[in-house]
């Protein structure tokens, strides 16, 4: 049985939109119908009541403005969340993606009426191919995890098309993102975990032992989640290819590689991009993302349908006619319509167009500079278990000898210094992990202030551990009772009529 919430003791900071409702208020009105009236269908097909809130426009605006003030964001401060590439999102992208020609086009319009959209998509496919060294790209996947799923489907389809049915194993390093095994699991594949060696690279001996003719392939993030570029990357790929497997690149960390190295040149067969990380599509409080997938020449026929192609070549002043094409052995459709066109593709297109080849290389170089600078400043205070030149991020241990302060406490205490905490407890192979990714869009002053705060917290952990363990102190909200949330499962502030609380 679910206990009634203890309403009397709980303080409400901002009422819910339902609590703010007052019968009779309206937020927007529409023009009256201008057509002769048709009777509604019989009552048994209609709903008796629509239990939505009733508010005026100002009520709605104030409510959401209050809520917005409870959020930490890139626009308000440093957000070094490892593996998430929380870079600054240029404002011009917000304008270009909202041009009426993009906003108000229907995905099923005849291609002749949407040549601007199709030209943009075609060009973006070409640019992503050039940046990554792949032969084909689909823009359809909605997010990184969706791109991964697409990639795994392509790998499976490739082996099947060759009559190679015994491949059931996916090799995944112990440092991998959870989405890698989950994407493989969705396909019913068996996941074989490959350990990392003492320098944070894939353990070659273990990999060699796992490589046989039942291997679908390997999913590898490189730079990996320790922020390290695998020193034996060519050997790793050679081993996987040697047993007939395909090499999947998790593009989560592509920010470190722009203009530095192309995964396709290294021998990767398939990779997803995270346009919301690398190409500054904003994260939106958890989406929408955008996860295009690039593939090498032997996998182009398996891409999801449709992709954008040239239907008729252009001549002299005539641009080509762009349209949709279906790859010969396509795995099918990954979502309705053509991917996250407006929110993802237009913003990423704008971003790449404004950077050009040199600007893209600058992104990677400064992202790596910032990470190494922070690592250098923190090295003497925080233990860095895999300590070598990092790429765009690094992982420190959030624990100190003689103190029971944990990574979580350090994360929470950072909020008191006005910083968003790094990712913690990931990757799983580092104890009390603090995974720090500063990105290229932070200046030296910010990095210094952040390093100073972390050094100060390390000292507090020894001198005033209770202060750190009870942090944050200066934020509007304190630590949450997560057990209560999971036990009581109040997931909605409105319940249907006759809802049985005992069920």
């Amino acid at each position, binding site marked *: 049985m679910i206990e009634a919430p203890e309403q009397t003791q709980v303080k409400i900071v901002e009422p819910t939109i339902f609590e703010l409702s007052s019968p009779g208020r309206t937020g*927007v009105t529409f023009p009256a119908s201008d057509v002769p009236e048709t009777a509604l269908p019989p009552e048994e097909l209609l709903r008796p009541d629509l239990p939505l809130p009733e508010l005026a426009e100002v009520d709605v605006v104030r409510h959401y403005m209050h809520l917005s003030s409870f959020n930490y964001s890139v626009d308000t401060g440093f957000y070094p969340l490892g593996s998430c590439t929380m870079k600054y999102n240029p404002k011009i992208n917000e304008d270009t993606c909202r041009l009426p020609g993009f*906003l108000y*086009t229907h995905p099923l319009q005849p291609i002749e*009426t949407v040549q601007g959209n199709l030209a943009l998509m075609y060009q973006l496919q070409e640019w992503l191919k050039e940046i990554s060294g792949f032969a084909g790209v689909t823009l359809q996947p909605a997010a990184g995890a969706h791109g991964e799923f697409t990639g795994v489907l392509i790998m499976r389809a490739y082996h099947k098309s060759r009559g190679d049915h015994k491949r059931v194993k996916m090799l995944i390093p112990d440092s991998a993102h959870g989405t890698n095994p989950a994407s493989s699991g969705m396909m019913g594949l068996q996941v074989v975990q490959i350990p990392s060696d003492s320098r944070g690279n894939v353990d070659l001996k273990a990999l060699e032992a796992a490589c046989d003719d039942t291997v679908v392939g390997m999913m590898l993030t490189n730079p990996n989640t320790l922020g390290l570029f695998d020193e034996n990357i060519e050997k790793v790929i050679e081993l996987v290819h040697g047993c007939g497997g395909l090499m999947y690149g998790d593009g989560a960390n592509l920010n470190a590689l722009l203009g530095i190295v192309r995964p396709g040149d290294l021998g990767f067969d398939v990779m997803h991009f995270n346009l919301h990380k690398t190409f500054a599509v904003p994260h939106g409080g958890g989406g929408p993302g955008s996860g295009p997938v690039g593939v090498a020449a032997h996998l182009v026929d398996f891409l999801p349908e449709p992709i954008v192609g040239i239907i008729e070549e252009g001549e002299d002043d005539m641009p080509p006619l762009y349209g949709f094409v279906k790859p010969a052995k396509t795995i099918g459709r990954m979502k*309705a319509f053509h991917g996250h066109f407006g929110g993802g593709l237009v913003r990423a297109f704008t971003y790449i167009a404004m950077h050009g080849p040199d600007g893209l290389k600058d992104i990677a170089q400064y992202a790596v*500079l910032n990470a190494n600078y922070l690592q250098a400043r923190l090295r003497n205070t925080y233990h860095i278990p895999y300590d070598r030149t990092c790429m765009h991020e690094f992982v420190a241990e959030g624990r100190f000898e003689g103190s029971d302060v944990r990574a979580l406490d350090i994360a929470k205490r950072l909020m008191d210094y006005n910083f968003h905490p790094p*990712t913690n407890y990931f990757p799983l192979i580092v104890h009390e992990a603090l995974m720090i990714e500063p990105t290229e869009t932070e200046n030296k002053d910010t990095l210094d202030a952040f390093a100073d705060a972390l050094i100060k917290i390390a000292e507090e952990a020894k001198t005033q551990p209770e202060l750190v363990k009870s942090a944050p102190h200066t934020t509007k909200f*304190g*630590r949450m009772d997560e057990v209560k949330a999971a036990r009581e*499962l109040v997931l909605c502030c409105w319940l249907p009529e006759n809802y049985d609380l005992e069920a």
Partner: protein
Amino acid sequence: MTYIPISPKERDAMLATIGVQSLDELFEDVPAKHRFPKLDLPPALTEMEALDELSGLAQANENVRSDLISFLGAGMYNHYIPSVVDHILRRGEFYTAYTPYQPEISQGTLQAIFEYQSLMCALTGMEVSNASHYDGATAAAEAVNMAFAQFRGKRRKVVVAPTVHPQYRAVIRTYTQGMDLQLAGDDQFPITDYQPSDLLSLVDDATCLVIVQYPDFFGRIYDYTKLIEGIHAKGALACIVANPTALALFKTPGSMGADIVVGDGQPLGIPMWYGGPSVGFFTTRKQYVHKMAGRLVGETVDSKGQRSYVLTLTAREQHIKRERATSNICTNQGLVALGTAVYLSLLGKKGLRQVAELCYQKAHYAAAQLSKIEGMGLCFSEPFFHEFALCVNRPVEEVNAHLLEHGILGGYDLGQDYPALKDHMLIAVTEMNTKEDIDTLVEVLSEVSHD
């Protein structure tokens, strides 16, 4: 240009702290022969040039606000979006935040998602909602995953009505190709005579899920209560793919006994944006909450005794369960879900009902006028919402080309997916279409019939 705020002098100081001479030195782990490729990309544009370039591309399209009168729907709809929605979505505090892993400084996002979940429950008549999926099609595919997991793989058949959106059915096929699952119903009935109750002949003890659409792909409204009773009698779950605008007017899927209700939230204040991003809503009964994929926000209290919200039941998710997770979903459509919540808050009880009634009235006026045209007629006689199948008695492509010459974006060509409905188009009418628009359509189509 770039957005890097580091001066050359600061850069050099930082390199010195690191102990290297140059930026290039940081990349010695990268195989030398592939290091620093020369990318064949156009040179960088300034902001001014980029805006010009993008404006040119946008203007190369014909859009449904200033260039075309649209009667095209088929899963994405041209509705009015009140100004407030985008003003809220443009707040950097919302759109430049990440998934709310640190609840103390993410209560804005968390409460907004909690309210989104509540609004979706209110709309569908269901008990729990997750924080969203990519779109309606992937939400439908996740319903299959959930039902499959619910029976622990012991029931391996899914029945999908042929009147579910063709692209949704295609996505379900893609998603399930590694699952050793039988998909039935898709092409087993003559579409012109099909009735939802026909599906029961396919439901057996091996069936885990039956999926129907509401209104169906042809815009028709059915009371699925009896069908769902039949599905439940076989022990299977029932999923309804619903249009959220229609739910303002018609009986809720929850009251029909549905176990899962999914759909695309685009009609709720989200621009069509050439197909995305939109948002897939996913609601179900509380008893299935542990099998539901996706992020979930729950209410709790903080250390100061304040009501607050956290991501909960995270043990179901991929970062904990890894290969044993039912889904790999990681991000949701946070910002788009926020947009739908703002839209629903603003329109509220009266506004959404008004939009639904306007759609209904205008679509019925259009249907009545169009069916008077000689040689044309409605394909079906069931009650419908804001879309209907019209027989135009000649190739739809030809008819649409003619309409386009008159600035009209015609209906969806049903013959592409249903050979029996060759020469039929699916016409969508919303509050955006005036009587004058509809009369123009009728007039131009009358010309076609006399050609």
